[in-house]
């Protein structure tokens, strides 16, 4: 019984990280209809910036907001200098769907190369904000530590904040409108370009948070967030790209399934299982768990 609980806990803490990354991807999707593969690149750059702060000030809690802000800034810059141009040029033909994919893939490679040039490829340690020693109850130590609790709590807070913004504020309305129909939104007086940039800034911040939270438990290198990107994307699709709650749930579903497979079956089946879970969800609900009934063809 305790093994099940332990596995569940491991799954929740792992899944929360997927949720954060998936939140970032959904944010971009909902505000710009682009799948942002460069998310991992933006996140790793923000994380390295946070790393610089931590190594110089030895204060994680200072690095956190710095990374967050840099993530937002980087996201905004990417939108202004890349996506805006892309949206104008490739908006018809079969390339319209893939051009952003390729562009963001290219951007991922670009950021990774720049990070490698500045900091080199060797692995670095990122200081833990709180310990990764599991909580102890009497004699038993569970594989859930203060750092995991921090991750879960942060994920929930981020999700709530962004949900409120999207559903309850004018900004959120503007974001959704610009994504759904830029022309009509423009007619309604929404500053589409600015709104979209804000959406990217939000996503960049979310990705940065994911980066600085997960990196202390592993190590920092230019490639360390790549797999997270894939998991985040899978989680986003599972949850349905249209819903922030879906993103969070998708992350948990993925995290928990992976944890159980890793524990009870084998570590080499992790990704095949992710694929199976994804397929299973999509076969029943082609728009993801929380996607609407109608599948919008992108």
């Amino acid at each position: 019984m305790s093994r099940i609980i332990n596995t569940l806990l491991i799954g929740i803490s792992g899944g929360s990280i997927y949720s954060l990354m998936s939140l970032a991807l959904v944010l971009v999707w909902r505000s710009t209809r682009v799948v942002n593969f460069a998310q991992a690149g933006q996140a790793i750059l923000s994380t390295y910036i946070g790393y610089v702060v931590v190594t110089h000030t030895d204060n994680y809690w200072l690095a956190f907001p710095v990374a967050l802000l840099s993530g937002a800034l980087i996201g905004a810059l990417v939108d202004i200098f890349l996506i805006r141009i892309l949206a104008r040029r490739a908006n018809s033909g079969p390339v319209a769907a893939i051009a952003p994919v390729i562009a963001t893939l290219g951007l991922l490679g670009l950021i990774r190369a720049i990070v490698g040039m500045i900091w080199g490829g060797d692995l670095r340690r990122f200081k833990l904000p709180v310990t990764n020693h599991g909580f102890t109850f009497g004699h038993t130590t569970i594989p859930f530590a203060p750092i995991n609790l921090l991750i879960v709590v942060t994920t929930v807070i981020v999700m709530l904040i962004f949900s409120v913004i999207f559903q309850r504020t004018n900004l959120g309305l503007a974001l959704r409108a610009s994504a759904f129909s830029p022309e009509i939104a423009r007619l309604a007086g929404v500053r589409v370009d600015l709104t979209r940039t804000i959406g990217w800034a939000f996503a960049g911040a979310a990705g940065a948070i994911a980066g600085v939270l997960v990196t202390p438990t592993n190590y920092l290198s230019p490639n360390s967030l790549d797999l997270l990107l894939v998991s985040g994307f899978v989680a986003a699709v599972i949850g349905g790209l249209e819903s922030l709650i879906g993103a969070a749930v998708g992350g948990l579903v993925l995290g928990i399934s992976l944890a159980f497979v890793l524990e009870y079956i084998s570590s080499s089946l992790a990704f095949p299982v992710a694929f199976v879970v994804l397929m299973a969800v999509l076969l029943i609900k082609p728009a993801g768990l929380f996607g609407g009934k109608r599948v919008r063809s992108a």
Partner: protein
Amino acid sequence: MFALRRTKRGVLASATLAVSALALSAIPAQAFSVHAETGVTATQIKLGITIPLTGSAAPGYSKIPSAMQAYFNYVNDNGGVYGRKISLVVKDDAYLPTLAVAKTNELILKDKVFAVVGALGTANNKAVAKSVNLGRRGIPDLFLNTGYSGFADAKKYPTTFSLFPSYIMEAKIMGQYIKENFAGKKLGLIYQDDDFGTDALVGFKQAGVKFDVSVPYASGSQSAQSAQGWIGKLKAAGAEVVVMFGVTTASGAALATAAAMAYKAQWILGSVGGDATTLKAVGVPAYVLTGAMGASFLPAPTDTTDEYVKFFQGINTKYNGDAVFDNNVLVAMNTAMMTVQALRAGGKNLTHASVMSALENSGSSFASASLSPINYASGVHVGYSGYWFGTYNSAGELKPNGGAYSVYTTDSGAGAIVKSTFKRPALPANGLPTN
């Protein structure tokens, strides 16, 4: 009518390309076997190495090429090998077999190296052997950075010269140590799930050691998260003594996660993943490493009373930038010293054949830091064959059990495990071989 025209054009295109392909093939190409003096000029000897500089297995091993080049530069500054300077072409293969194949092809076709030296990774070297087949091309494949026992098979790999003791040897010696010192305890094993790990399994079986729980991991899958699964299984089985036979990032993940999960056991680290400096760099807290055991065939990198270690530390300071001197650097420089002696023994008229027959004839008397004898002989490409055991102290130094290095040697078969009386050759004057 239209359809006919379309087909005609397709045929035209196909015919053109077919003709050009035929014409291409009619032109005589370069001879299949590479000329014996490729990579050697009057002033230079070009060597090549494939090694993970990036990727999940890179930590620690990525220091090897620059350490080797550091020693080569020292030798170059002192006349080189009969006036020829040694240069090392380094290719990153990220510990992936396919990249190793691609990069080795580059070394042979593009860089045209004289020999491959220190190529790292069991799976990688096996893939290269199957695919590029240096043996068939007559290119020396020296001092591989792997202990897979199969590479010592001189018939299957005629140009390959193993250096490290095989994993079977290591497991046998480790197994005997476990039987003598940890009898009756519950045993656990974490191993890499390819020939690197299964080689060890053969050795443990030879030694008669049975593990209560065995946890394989797929190469590349090691991470803090997957390590949680490993530790979970060990904990569930109640293992008190755990052997860790994996690369450094895997042992790092295992130890760090064990600390986080408050799992205590007597850890025994295999030589591949036992470098203390790298382990600390990947996040293993010092207290977890203290009391763990490890094996090595070289003196401890922190043992400044050893003349080879002292000498190499000096080279490291002068020629290797700001690299921290650890076991990886020591291993690398030792390999480099062996390489220089092999090249010298190959004579002024350096060819593939001369180097390889020199190794067979005189390789066993080369000077090296290893406390184990060298076993090269005609038709025998086995290098070292022994290990000593030590325990890590709180400073991360591996101190030999019993105070002095006591080396045990064996073979990769059913041979006995014998306490060695080998006395290694003294360090050549100024560390410059004169063989």
